[in-house]
Structure formats: C-alpha cells, structure tokens
C-alpha cells in the first residue's frame, strides 16, 4: 500500500475565514503547503502572506464554488504552483436561515449551489488531480444539522445531508484510486457564519439574540461551543496516516449535539 506524503499539499475551500482559516493555519504548522481558495480573495491573500511570513508554503486563489469554470481554474492554479494535491478540505459553505414557508427558490438554489453542487465538483476536480499522483484525502465539512429536523434551517440541513451522501458515494468510487473520502461534522462554533445565522434565527423566533445564544450553548451536553482549533485538529487527523483505513465515514465533533 502506498502512503501519501505527510505533510504534503492541501487545498482548503473557504480557507480565508472561520473554520477554513483555522484549518489552513493548523496544516501550515504541520509544514503542509497550503492553498487557500476563497471568494474573498483579499482576505485569502493576506492570510496566505501571513503564513508565508511564518515560513510556510502558501498560495491564495480566487474560488467561487458556485461556478464550474472557477473551480476548474482555481484547482489548476494550485496544481501549477505545487505540482500535486494530497488533501482537499471543503469548508466553503453558506447558511440559509428562513422559516420553512418563506424559503424562496433563489435561496434554496444558492444554498445548494455552494454547499452541495460546489462541494461535489471540488471533490471531482481534486480527485482527478490526486489520481495523477497516486491518491489523496478528501475531507468534507458536514453538519449536525443533517441529522436534525430544523424548521428554520431546512435548505442548509438538506444541503449538508447531501454532503454526507456524496461522501459515501465518493468513498466507493475513489477507493481504487487510493483516495479516502470522509466527512466531519463540527458542533456549534463562534464564526461569522454562525453569528449571522443565529442573529437571523433569533429574529425569526422573536427572541433576544444574546439569550438565544446562551440557551443554545447551555443546552449542549458539553455546555460549551467547539473551538476552531479543536475542529482543525480533527481535520488534520483525517489527513494523517493514522486514518488510512478510514473511508466513507463521518466524524462528529459536536459535543454531543446529535444526542439531544
């Protein structure tokens, strides 16, 4: 069995902010060459420069995952720079908080264009590149929401349930190419996306935002939110030789959220 290089080259979609950025920093610390793929190219560039100052190989690339040609170009650019791709982490995502009866077709389509279709084509493109060098790892960020009934979060939860399904199919399709595909479901974190979702959620539910956040945190079995660093650590684990026999699986780092 051929082992992938560790550290190698990692591409992170949505790598300029929140969880994606924490993942980029953790992999850089492990001496990976890091490609930050993000629609916010300015943020991506400044984060890549910061990693370079610390001695890491880093690259910022514009990526709009809702556009196929953008995916094509972004991954080709990474490949041109680093000549290979060993790990893909799909963090790019958006949330859609709307009461069930009010979700519009445009909101539904946009959620799926980014979270589901974008992720699928990133997986597909990365798999082609990984196949050229003998294999790799794909880590898709899912969500506890995909297991839950969430009337304000229908489109998001459904888009993430599709991510779990894509992960399973990809695992079988890509096993012969020596590519492992797994997903990771992080619990509630303090990110920009989480904050805007919870603000909208509290507004629709007619409750105070601070109280809403406090009660959602208190209701977690572990009584606290996940830190970005601990989720990034688990992403690194899924890229490490320790998980070479793991594929098509889902890692829940959610403080027991799915249990309640």
């Amino acid at each position: 069995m051929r082992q992938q290089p560790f550290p190698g080259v990692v591409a992170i979609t949505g790598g300029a902010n929140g969880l994606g950025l924490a993942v980029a920093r953790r992999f850089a610390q492990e001496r990976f060459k890091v490609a930050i793929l993000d629609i916010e190219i300015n943020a991506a560039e400044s984060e890549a420069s910061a990693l370079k100052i610390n001695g890491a190989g880093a690259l910022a690339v514009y990526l709009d995952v809702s556009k196929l040609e953008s995916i094509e170009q972004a991954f080709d650019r990474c490949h041109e720079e680093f000549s290979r791709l060993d790990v893909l982490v799909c963090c790019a995502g958006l949330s859609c908080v709307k009461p069930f009866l009010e979700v519009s077709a445009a909101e539904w389509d946009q959620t799926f264009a980014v979270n589901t279709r974008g992720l699928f084509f990133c997986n597909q493109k990365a798999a082609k590149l990984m196949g050229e060098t003998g294999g790799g790892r794909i880590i898709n960020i899912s969500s506890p929401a995909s297991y839950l009934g969430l009337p304000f979060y229908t489109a998001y939860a459904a888009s993430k349930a599709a991510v779990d399904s894509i992960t399973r199919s990809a695992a079988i399709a890509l096993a012969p190419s020596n590519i492992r595909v797994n997903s990771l479901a992080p619990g509630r974190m303090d990110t920009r996306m989480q904050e805007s979702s919870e603000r909208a959620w509290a507004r629709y539910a007619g409750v105070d935002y601070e109280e809403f956040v406090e009660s959602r945190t208190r209701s977690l079995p572990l009584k606290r939110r996940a830190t970005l660093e601990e989720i990034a650590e688990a992403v690194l684990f899924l890229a490490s030789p320790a998980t070479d026999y793991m594929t098509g699986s889902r890692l829940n780092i959610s403080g027991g959220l799915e249990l309640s």
Partner: protein
Amino acid sequence: MLGRLQDKTIAITGGCGDIGRATAVRLSKEGAKVVLFDLDLPAAVKLELKGQFDSGGITYVRADVTNHSELQAAFETVVDKFQRLDVVIANAGIVRNQKFLEISLRDWQRTLDVNLNGAFLTAQIACRFMLKQEPTNKGIRGKVLFTGSWVQDMPWPEGASYITSKSGVKMLAKTMAQELAGFGIRVNILAPGIVMAGLSKKIYETDSRFRERVGEAIPLGEMQTAESVADAFAFLCSSDSDYMTGAVLVVDGGASLVRRT
C-alpha cells in the same frame, strides 16, 4: 519527547487479544501507562511485550468482565497503583457465527454476557472511579471508549448474537454520553471493520468463501490491521477528541458503505 498521552492511565479489557495488544503498544508509545485486563496472560504475549512490561509502560491485571467482584478488584488495583484512571477501553468481546435457527440459549447468553453486560460493568465501575477524581484543566474526569463494530448498524450473515450485542453497546454508549456529559465524562465508540484478528483471522485462513466475501465487502479491498484500530483509539484517548461525546468513529475501510441484498 513527551507523548500526546504522557502519564495517562488507560485500562483495556480483552487487552491480550490482537486489537488489545496493538492498542496497548500504540498508547504506550505515546507515553500512556496501559493496563491489560484479560482472563490470562499467555506466555507468547509476555514475550511479545517483554520490553514494555520491563519498562512498566504496560502491565497486566487478571480480570473476567463477566465477574463483577473480580472486575471491581481489578480497577481498584489500577487506581491504587496509578492514583488515577484517565481512560477505559471496553474491548473484550467474543464472536460466534451461527445460523439463527441453530443458536442455543447458552451461546446467545454467553455472547451477550461478555460483549454487552461485560461492557456495561466495565463502564459503570470505571465511571464510579472517574467521578471521584479531579477534572483536568479542560474539565475532563475520564473517557470511556467502546469497541463497537461496523455491523452494529448492519446485518451480516450468521451474526445475530454478535451484532445484537454490538448494537446494544452503541445505545449504551449514547445514553451514557448524554447522562454523564455534565460530569466531565466523555463516552465514544470506535467501530472497526473486518479486522485480521481473532476469529476472522482463523476463518480467513481456512475458508475461501469467506475470503471472497471479504474482498467484495470492503471498498479498500483488504482486511483491516489491528494497528489501524490502535491509531484511531490513540486519537479517541487524546485531548484532540475532547469535544467528542456520544459519537461513533467508523474506521472500516468502507465496509459499511456496501449495500448487500
């Protein structure tokens, strides 16, 4: 170099089996003090782990998971010696593959006694010790891990007693995780696939039909090594998994992805 599990005390039931030994070696390499619980210590195991026994990285305590007082005494020995129990791995298990119509009540009960009741007793006794100790700076008093199986969610021919026991362990773990979350105890399951160990290893070596079935059943095309199970246990023992509770870590080469009809 200080390991990720430096000076953590970890007890593992079924410690002398293939998964138990590989796990103990892996954990002790990362700095843990590992205690093997098992019915006996075979001479071959003593020889294989001589280095670790000599250095004190691994020790052995006799324990039968179906015997409450013996198990209680074994945990007391560990806590007396190390003053702490950070992780327990309820790993002892037996497999008996039999056609449903041919399972005797005695065989059925024996499998459930070891795999389910034994896991329950191990977890309950360990938790009572853990609840008495001071939490770490991250608020954790202890971790309870179970060896589940990919078949806990999926039927496999002639596996009724084993699968029922593993499926029971899964709900035991989730219920415990929920009840004990507020007390600093994490509970998780590692679900391996078809491991080249114990009974599977024997059947693999003698039954060509089994070999064919295995080849078709595993997307990664090869049986699992005990070392790959050990790698995953090292993660679940470490603080890298502190935000996980009530979760199942499936490391099965994709075996559970394949639909059988």
